[in-house]
């Protein structure tokens, strides 16, 4: 029927999944009711699509970030790849051993010791007893449990419990690693260890599918991005393009819900480069704003620039005196430190002193602008791209 795919390949073809729209309780009388409704010729049950026509082909060794807003179907797709859930229609084919990096605190038995739980988890995840034994020290080290490993788990802190379950999963050696929102688990140090472990696994050629709302983390691990929207694939491309598209759409939504009824509003803004030309990296940039409103008095104008909506890059402010008329103000940045890309301009005005107690125009994204210029050097594979600023530099040898 199909050719042999290599271990680590993920293939979905025309995958559909639906859920009951009104699925809350599972009592006999609910079933009786719905059965009666169907007998009377009613619609029976309401269904809604969770995923529609998902076609993905992921090669062995690829790292793919699944992004999208809540309810877009990311977790459902992941569950079907894990084989926990079954599709309504379509083909799902995952080759090789599947590992799921998930928080499985649910499976921890409080009366057993940490050691006993590690073996139980191992068995659940498909590891043999001796395989767990071989990795046991690594697991304990990863979870930072130390001497607590022989204590009953009910005496663990909740963080320790989470780390325990997670550590076992992290030491599987699967062909395909599925990761669902792990970064909500544990403290910052542990999150970093999880990301490091994922990178390590990626280096070894494991296929990774990573679901998270932590976009920088996704970007640091994944090469390819799949943006799901309302159960369909909106964009399937390089991670930067997918993230950019997703961020733009979030922005569009937040701009749509604009505030009103504030004393000041932004009448006009313009972002220009030298001689009113395009913006270029390391060249001057001018931001011109016109504020409208009948407020009189001193105020502070804040300006900010972000990449997408969630990664602020810099922020500056300036005191202005408002006279009740339209107010024009310009700001020049002599050497723009931004590499090529699309950015968002933010603005807000707050009164000075105790007069009205604050907000004249709340902090909001005014709009977007493009910068032309050199592309940031691509970091080595699996390094966090947390530094979005262009620094003029010269190499000598």
């Amino acid at each position: 029927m199909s050719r042999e795919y290599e271990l680590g390949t993920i293939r979905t073809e025309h995958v559909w999944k639906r859920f009951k729209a009104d699925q809350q309780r599972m009592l006999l009388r609910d079933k009786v009711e719905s059965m009666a409704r169907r007998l009377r010729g009613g619609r029976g049950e309401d269904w809604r699509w969770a995923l529609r026509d998902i076609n993905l082909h992921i090669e062995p060794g690829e790292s793919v970030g699944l992004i999208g807003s809540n309810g877009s179907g990311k977790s459902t797709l992941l569950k079907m790849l894990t084989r926990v859930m079954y599709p309504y229609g379509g083909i799902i084919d995952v080759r090789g051993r599947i590992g799921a990096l998930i928080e499985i605190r649910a499976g921890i038995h409080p009366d057993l010791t940490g050691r006993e739980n590690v073996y139980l988890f191992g068995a659940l995840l498909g590891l043999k007893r001796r395989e767990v034994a071989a990795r046991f020290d690594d697991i304990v080290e990863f979870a930072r449990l130390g001497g607590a490993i022989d204590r009953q788990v009910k005496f663990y802190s909740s963080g320790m419990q989470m780390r325990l379950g997670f550590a076992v999963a992290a030491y599987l050696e699967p062909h395909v690693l599925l990761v669902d929102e792990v970064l909500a688990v544990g403290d910052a140090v542990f999150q970093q260890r999880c990301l490091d472990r994922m990178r390590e696994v990626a280096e070894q050629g494991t296929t990774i599918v990573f679901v998270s709302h932590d976009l920088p983390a996704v970007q640091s691990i994944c090469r390819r991005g799949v943006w799901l929207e309302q159960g369909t694939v909106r964009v399937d491309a390089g991670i930067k393009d997918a993230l950019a598209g997703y961020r733009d759409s979030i922005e569009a939504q937040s701009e749509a819900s604009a505030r009103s009824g504030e004393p000041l509003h932004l009448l006009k803004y313009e972002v220009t480069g030298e001689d009113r030309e395009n913006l270029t990296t390391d060249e001057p940039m001018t931001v011109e704003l016109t504020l409208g409103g009948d407020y009189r008095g001193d105020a502070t104008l804040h300006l900010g620039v972000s990449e997408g909506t969630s990664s602020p890059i810099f922020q500056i402010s300036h005191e202005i005196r408002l006279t009740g008329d339209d107010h024009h103000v310009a700001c020049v940045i002599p050497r723009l430190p931004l590499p090529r890309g699309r950015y968002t301009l933010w603005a807000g005005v707050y009164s000075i002193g105790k007069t009205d107690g604050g907000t004249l125009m709340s902090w909001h994204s005014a709009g977007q602008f493009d910068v032309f210029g050199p592309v940031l050097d691509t970091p080595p594979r699996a390094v966090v791209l947390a530094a979005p600023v262009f620094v003029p530099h010269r190499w000598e040898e």
Partner: protein
Amino acid sequence: MGGHSAQVVDGRGTEPAARPAVPEGPPPELLFKRRLRPAQTARELWAARELVRALAERDLRARYKQAVLGFAWAVLTPLALCAIFTLVFHRAVKIDTGGVSYPLFAYVGLIVWQFFSNTMNQGALSLANNLSLLNKVYCPREVFPLATMLVASVDMLIGVGVLGVLFLATWTAPAATALWVLPLLAIQFAFTYGVALILSVAVVYLRDVRHLLPIITQMGVFATPVAYPLARIPVRMQEIYCGINPLGAVIEGYRRALLYGQAPDAGLTGIAAVSSLVFLVGGYLFFKKLETGIADVA
């Protein structure tokens, strides 16, 4: 991999200009259908044997870690029931055991019944209690009821040890026909597992089934020839009875083989064997069919 360029503006930059519209539904030939491949299922179950052991071990350890008397409970429960039965049925009702000491007679039945009711009660909830786990990790789900049956088997083994003590105490020797126990054991396991499979998946879909369990347990102990011989049931009804409740034939068979030195009744045992096979296979198919939706309803 460079900075995103200007055409990504509307977030659709990398898509083809005309995105093919999403069809109304999946192509009908690709609708999901549960296909059961016996060889593959068996292989999966075999691969999960360590998991079954680990789950059973978890239950046993957890159960006895907190209990002061520990494994003694596995003995005390049937012994207490045995004592009550001896008082009620032997002294008051005067059950005819055919010359065998009544406690021994009743205890053989109780071992089988305890095994069944333990597996059924624990097994029925085995999926429901592990739902959060089932929603995250894949494993063949039939291991959960299987593990509870393994736990019940350990209890039964302890019970058998006590049976040996009872033999000594009553100066009775097990009859030479004791080897008949093996096929009867197979029937007992097949039936018990079949019932546990059906109930475990039914509880996930219909929480009401939970409330049926105590009723089945309480009625079953009297509806099954635990305290009395199968002969109490009218002869013409016995075949139908053993078809519905193979445990009747199993208990009767054990008594004949161990206490009376007779081979089990071929007809009734045959009926029980067929019936328990139907329970097992039917239960398994039922389980596998409904299993696909567990993650959706949980």
